[in-house]
């Protein structure tokens, strides 16, 4: 695509440079793991070696004898609420009587050196009575509860239409999605500093400062005002930082030792220290008429939530909402359950439930197309929802729902050229690359297509508002908002909005902290819409006050002035007042705080009907793969996409989001899985948890479909999640096309492709 669409260099719609770009390329940007303070101690966490066990006793005396150790804390040392959790507080801050997953935190220590802290943790003697772990989600329903809250987080049905309606063409399949890890490059890290007023300052990499504060303050037994959080530089998030990891532990240690305490998880610890994408088993039956128009969808979804609730409930609501995708379906009967097991807890990851559903429904759409003898793209167009059409949960798509346009735009991208010359073994663009497994004649090319839909913002009645403050003084705008910048570029957007509204070049984005009101989570594709909306409103309020004052000072009618190109001019274009913004009202702070709220939503009713979601975004992906069919090796050659973005605010950043999201979708398609054995993670490292390298990432072609959403403050939709959702099924469809193997599970392993011929 062509990035530069106009010659403007600032404002929205232009590829403005990131304000944090220079320090980041120079290595000077302070990530949470880079924080350092004179006299600080190092924290370390002792974690349970069992997936399920009763704690008989904990003896910390060995740890206390290690020189340089300043604190050893266990469950008994948690002064406030003993548990935390995003939706329900069901997870112990430190396990006291029972551990429910392998890697659960049991004790924390603080010492002068990280190696001493590790040694001290190893010297804590914990006696466990191992219990049988519940690791099969299917068995969780009938099993003895492994937690006082029971083994079912939520069970729901979506039922609508004529129950007796059936179609002459039916396809049925069972699909499985493995456990994916967000694997942000930056490990969990933070620094807690005890304050003189009995409170604590916490610098931490997180997605959601205010909910961290709420949970931390509860555990510490402190007034939330005494727990002050500031965002440390965040090395990627993707859902992994929405839950509490080390926040409470750090504050406990700092308050106990009266010293600053820093903690950084190792990669192995990170794998048990944050939640994962829910593994899912999904059975779907699609019935259609002979033209492929859907008549009925029924099925069942089972999600493994792991040991604690985290966001399991909303993940299931999303998965169920999109059980049939963005298609018109008159009759629906789907059941969904998310259960508790002794596997690692699952929660938020980019795509949040929509990923699992999409892999299943898009595989079904391909099978239906084959059964009806209809082209897969045509089948999707025939069933595609448009504005005003009802989802299976009864809500209508809004005015911005350009699904057909998106599908068509995606198909218009050029296909990759066939290789100019026959590639030899070792060519880096062949499957197996430098492994020299594969030559041109071993390769079959396949093409696959998939479509997705995702809700934006929190659902089912959540009022996930955002707050922003804007101050203008002598031509410098300072914007404060607690929205967490995790790499997505929100700080750039703040610059763009402030510049566009107030016309000044000098924009300061204040550190995100809890001194201002809640901005909600950097998740659910919501910050551009919600915090972008709050920043816009705050900047507009300041601009309006500025214009009012200037109008008064110049004795012109209120409302007759506007800001254009950094100047205050008449709305009629007259130059009656022609004043640079930085020269107007000097020496005075003009400021405003504004809260943005989205329209209210409702919980699903007993039949799974309601108005649960705020807004939607759709995307389409077409994947081209080269497969060495004999060995089952895959190289994704190209992923072409069109995405419904509402409006492009920063083309370069939007492109980066989409390319990055596709790489994560590619990872789930062909390599990424947390492998569990009786609840223990077998591949908790970057050696064995494989994320795509530069040689695995595909060429990406992007087209933005711009139909501004009238409800969106900037017309723009969040764009982070859709690329991750339908890229996975498109790639798997392409592998099916190349190999003829049904492939019902992701990630697709080489052994899945070679199948029975492998003799296994």
């Amino acid at each position, binding site marked *: 695509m062509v990035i530069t669409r106009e010659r403007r260099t600032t404002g929205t719609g232009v590829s403005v440079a990131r304000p944090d770009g220079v320090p980041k*390329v120079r290595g000077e940007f302070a990530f949470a793991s880079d924080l350092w303070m004179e006299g600080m101690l190092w924290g370390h966490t002792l974690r349970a070696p069992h997936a399920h066990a009763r704690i008989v006793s904990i003896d910390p005396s060995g740890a206390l004898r290690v020189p340089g150790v300043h604190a050893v804390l266990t469950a008994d040392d948690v002064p406030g609420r003993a548990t935390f959790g995003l939706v329900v507080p069901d997870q112990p801050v430190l396990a006291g009587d029972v551990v429910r997953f392998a890697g659960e935190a049991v004790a924390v220590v603080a010492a002068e050196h990280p*190696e001493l802290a590790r040694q001290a943790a190893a010297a804590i003697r914990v006696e466990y009575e191992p219990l049988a772990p519940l690791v099969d989600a299917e068995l969780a329903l009938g099993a003895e509860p492994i937690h006082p809250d029971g083994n079912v987080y939520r069970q729901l049905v979506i039922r609508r239409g004529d129950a007796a309606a059936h179609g002459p063409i039916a396809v049925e399949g069972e699909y499985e999605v493995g456990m994916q890890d967000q694997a942000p490059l*930056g490990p969990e890290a933070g620094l807690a500093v005890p304050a003189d007023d009995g409170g604590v300052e916490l610098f931490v990499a997180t997605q959601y400062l205010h909910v961290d504060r709420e949970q931390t303050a509860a555990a510490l037994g402190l007034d939330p005002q005494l727990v002050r959080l500031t965002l440390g530089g965040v*090395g*990627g998030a993707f859902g992994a930082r929405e839950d509490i990891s080390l926040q409470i532990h750090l504050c406990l240690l700092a308050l106990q030792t009266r010293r600053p305490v820093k903690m950084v998880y190792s*990669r192995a610890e990170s794998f048990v220290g944050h939640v994962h994408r829910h593994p899912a088993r999904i059975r779907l039956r699609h019935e259609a008429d002979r033209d492929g128009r859907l008549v009925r969808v029924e099925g069942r979804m089972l999600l493994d939530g792991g040991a604690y609730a985290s966001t399991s409930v909303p993940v299931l609501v999303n998965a169920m909402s999109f059980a049939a995708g963005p298609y018109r379906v008159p009759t629906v009967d789907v059941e969904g359950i998310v259960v508790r097991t002794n596997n690692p807890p699952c929660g938020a990851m980019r795509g949040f439930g929509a990923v699992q559903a999409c892999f299943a429904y898009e595989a079904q759409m391909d099978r239906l197309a084959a059964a009806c003898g209809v082209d897969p793209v045509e089948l999707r167009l025939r069933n595609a929802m448009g504005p005003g059409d009802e989802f299976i949960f009864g809500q209508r798509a809004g005015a911005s729902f350009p699904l057909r346009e998106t599908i068509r735009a995606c198909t218009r991208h050029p296909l990759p050229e066939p290789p100019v010359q026959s590639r030899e073994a070792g060519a880096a663009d062949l499957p197996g690359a430098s492994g020299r497994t594969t030559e041109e004649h071993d390769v079959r090319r396949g093409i696959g297509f998939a479509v997705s839909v995702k809700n934006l913002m929190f659902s089912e009645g959540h009022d996930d508002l955002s707050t922003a403050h804007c101050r203008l003084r002598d031509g410098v705008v300072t914007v404060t908002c607690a929205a967490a910048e995790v790499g997505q570029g929100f700080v750039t957007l703040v610059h763009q909005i402030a510049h566009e509204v107030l016309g000044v070049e000098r924009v300061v984005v204040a550190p995100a902290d809890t001194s201002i009101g809640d901005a909600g989570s950097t998740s659910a594709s919501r910050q551009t819409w919600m915090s972008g909306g709050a920043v816009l409103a705050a900047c507009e309020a300041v601009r309006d006050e500025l214009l009012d004052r200037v109008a008064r000072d110049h004795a012109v009618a209120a409302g007759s002035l506007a800001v254009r190109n950094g100047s205050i001019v008449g709305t009629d274009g007259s130059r009656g007042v022609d004043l640079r913004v930085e020269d107007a009202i000097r020496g005075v702070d003009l400021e405003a705080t504004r809260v943005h709220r989205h329209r209210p939503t409702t919980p699903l009713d007993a039949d799974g009907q309601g108005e649960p979601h705020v807004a939607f975004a759709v995307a389409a992906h077409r994947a081209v793969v080269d497969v060495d069919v004999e060995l089952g090796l895959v190289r994704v050659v190209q992923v072409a996409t069109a995405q419904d973005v509402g409006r492009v605010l920063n083309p370069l950043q939007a492109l980066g989001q989409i390319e990055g999201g596709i790489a994560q979708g590619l990872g789930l398609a062909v390599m990424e899985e947390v492998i569990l054995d009786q609840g223990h993670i077998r591949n908790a490292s970057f050696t064995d948890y494989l994320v795509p*390298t530069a040689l695995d990432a595909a060429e990406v072609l992007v087209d933005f479909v711009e139909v501004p959403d009238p409800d969106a403050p900037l017309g723009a939709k969040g764009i982070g999640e859709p690329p991750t959702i339908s890229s996975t099924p498109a790639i798997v469809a392409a592998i099916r096309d190349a190999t003829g193997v049904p492939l019902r599970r992701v990630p697709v392993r080489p052994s899945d492709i070679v199948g029975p011929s492998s003799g296994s």
Partner: protein
Amino acid sequence: MADPLSYRIRVNGQSHDVCDAWIGESLLFVLRERLGLSGAKNACEQGECGSCSVFVDGQLVCSCLVLAATVPGAEVVTIEGLTAGGGTALTDVQQAFLDEGAVQCGFCTPGLVMTVHDLLERDTLPSELAVREALAGNLCRCTGYGRILAAVARAASGRAGTNRDSAR
């Protein structure tokens, strides 16, 4: 822990005394926690991600896999040493990363900048596949590498242009 040891290492042209260190400390740890040079990042501590890439005697290596106590006598260059003099000076590679939108969270960025400098020193106009292979040891979780490849292409063509100009 074993008896503490003290030694002197050279980083970015300057000598630094490392005092009372544990022998098991990696070069990455010493750079970050003892010398305050936190540009090299810790993301995997086993050489799988490239975030900690530095030059030791001109060789690009993962500093997490180098025992710091073995480094005396060698010249270490970190991301901080690429633009000596401080301020806001940028190398051509760093500028290209900004121009092409190759930076998101930025955690992998210093390591990638080091790797791209190493690549372009050895191969002035690498093919896209050669770039992909050279960057395969630097994991990026945000960008999907598209903008990074564009940045490398921009930096490489910039150098080619400079060479052409100087050849005239």
